[in-house]
């Protein structure tokens, strides 16, 4: 997958910007606060039709203007899509069009292989379980078309059931039946969520273990696994078996749920576990080990996409300045597995040379105060140097 051009109008600190992009690597260089992240996030927004990681639409609109609008040309599975995304503040109106047609069901969902890597991701292991679930849910909805739908329905059911559990005026019998009605859907959607999570974590885990081994000359091992309330190998066995076990589990905790007044059984309480040399990385690993484990996982995501028919798009927001030489090298190698790369840097550093040598097809952009200019090559000698 790659994006050949993008147009930004009133987006963050960009008033109006039209860019032709390289199908290879695109480097965006600029000092702090000039608009690098804003630009990279617009690429994400275009692919998924929604703001990057929980930002609000209204905050994306250039302050003092009434709307933002993005347009781009995406090449995916040998087809070309003209995508338009926008938001109008006053009418609270969201626009998402593909090839000129309104697209309500988001037909690109689950089809765009995009891996976004920002420095804060490196802290994934240190953070709380809800942060890791958010990571899982976000990444899986990108690959598995129905996952996002299941998830939003599941969350809605949990929200309703939590409220029902606090109901005081119903008889115990009615309440029991009412909770059962919500549980039916918790089991239905929850089992599908469990199955997908288990599948992707297992696929990534294998690749991540190898990557981690390479980083530490095989002297250290990483294992990533899904820590679920359901004590079962979720990879084997079919959906009806998972549903059955889920319903047994939920029945066993029924009383406890009434007492505590909220849903305690389900994938909304699960976690992603990182084990380094057999120990829980959150509790025992060094900061460097934890960050390396995340890199190994990010790398695995790229490799996983690479194994599929469609090569991914890789977006790195100022990540290299955060890494030491060894980890940088591993990331450099990954770049070759992507179809198109967006990379932001604050300034050119010596350690970036291998990247510039490796890619013949690249564009270099300079961003200053919400305005991007392409720096063109000049004969053999790139102006950039």
């Amino acid at each position, binding site marked *: 997958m790659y994006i050949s051009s993008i147009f930004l109008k009133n987006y963050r600190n960009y008033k109006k910007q039209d860019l032709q992009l390289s199908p290879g690597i695109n480097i965006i260089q600029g000092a702090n606060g000039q608009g690098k992240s804003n630009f990279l996030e617009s690429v994400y927004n275009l692919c998924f039709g929604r703001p990057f990681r929980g930002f609000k639409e209204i905050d994306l609109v250039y302050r003092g203007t009434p709307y933002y609008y993005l347009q781009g040309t995406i090449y995916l599975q040998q087809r070309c899509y003209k995508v338009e995304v926008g938001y109008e503040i006053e009418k609270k109106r969201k626009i998402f069009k593909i090839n000129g047609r309104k697209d309500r069901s988001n037909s690109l969902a689950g089809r765009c292989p995009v891996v976004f890597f920002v420095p804060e991701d490196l802290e994934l292991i240190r953070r709380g379980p809800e942060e890791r679930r958010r990571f899982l849910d976000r990444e899986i909805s990108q690959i598995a078309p129905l996952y996002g*739908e299941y998830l939003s329905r599941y969350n809605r059911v949990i929200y309703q*059931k939590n409220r029902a559990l606090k*109901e005081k005026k*119903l008889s115990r019998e*009615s309440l029991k*039946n*009412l909770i059962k*009605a919500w549980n039916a*859907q918790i089991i239905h959607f929850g089992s599908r969520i469990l199955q997908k999570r288990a599948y992707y974590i297992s696929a990534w885990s294998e690749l991540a273990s190898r990557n981690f081994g390479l980083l530490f000359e095989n002297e250290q091992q990483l294992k990533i696994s899904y820590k679920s309330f359901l004590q079962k190998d979720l990879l084997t066995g079919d959906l009806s078996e998972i549903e059955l076990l889920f319903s047994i589990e939920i029945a066993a905790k029924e009383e406890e749920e009434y007492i505590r007044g909220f849903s305690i059984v389900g994938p909304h309480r699960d976690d992603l576990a990182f084990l380094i040399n057999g120990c829980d990385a959150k509790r025992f690993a060094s900061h460097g080990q934890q960050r390396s484990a995340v890199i190994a996982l990010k790398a695995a995501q790229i490799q996983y996409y690479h194994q599929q028919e469609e090569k991914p798009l890789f977006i790195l927001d100022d990540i290299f300045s955060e890494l030491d030489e060894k980890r940088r090298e591993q990331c450099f190698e990954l770049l070759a597995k992507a179809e198109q790369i967006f990379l932001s840097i604050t300034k050119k550093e010596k350690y970036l040379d291998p990247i510039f040598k490796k890619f013949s097809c690249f564009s270099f952009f300079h961003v200053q105060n919400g305005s991007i200019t392409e720096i063109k090559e000049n004969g053999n000698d790139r102006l950039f140097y």
Partner: protein
Amino acid sequence: MLFSPSITRLVEVFRRLPGIGPKTALRLTFFVLTMKNEEVQEMARALVEAKKRVRYCTRCRNLTEDELCPVCRDERRDKALLCVVQEPRDMMVIEKTGQFKGRYFILHGALSPVEGIGPDELMIPQLLQLIKDKKIEEVVIATNPNVEGDATAYYIAGAAKPLGVRVTRIGFGLPVGGDLEYADELTMTRALESRREM
């Protein structure tokens, strides 16, 4: 203030209607002011009269001006067949097909604890009583295919089955006249799940 108090008040009143934003409310207000006196009076009367006369059918909770609605009064209807819908307009959609020969029960909503809507608010006890009293043989549930509608269907099924009645749910299919290619994946999945023997 830009407009006189009466205009502002009318705009506010229109804005309470569903689907009407500030601009439309203002347009309606100006339009009403250009109408003839008699027309405006008739409009006001119609609102008051409708509100005064229309009530729920005591059997099915359809909107009616009598004790029983026309469907409940119609003796040719299949008395053993009952269709449960969320809203009066859902009933109208089914009626238009002319395919359903039974009677209805209208919930006027779906289970939604966060909005304080439980079984009692939907008159589900009354529905169960009706099933018992009128010797209903089959209950067809036609609530919306979303989280709340599904929970409601499940709840009613659970409460009705012990009464010895057959409970069915209308199938979820693909829109007629649409291309398979354009069906969203969730619709397709549900259509597959509710497939049937041919």
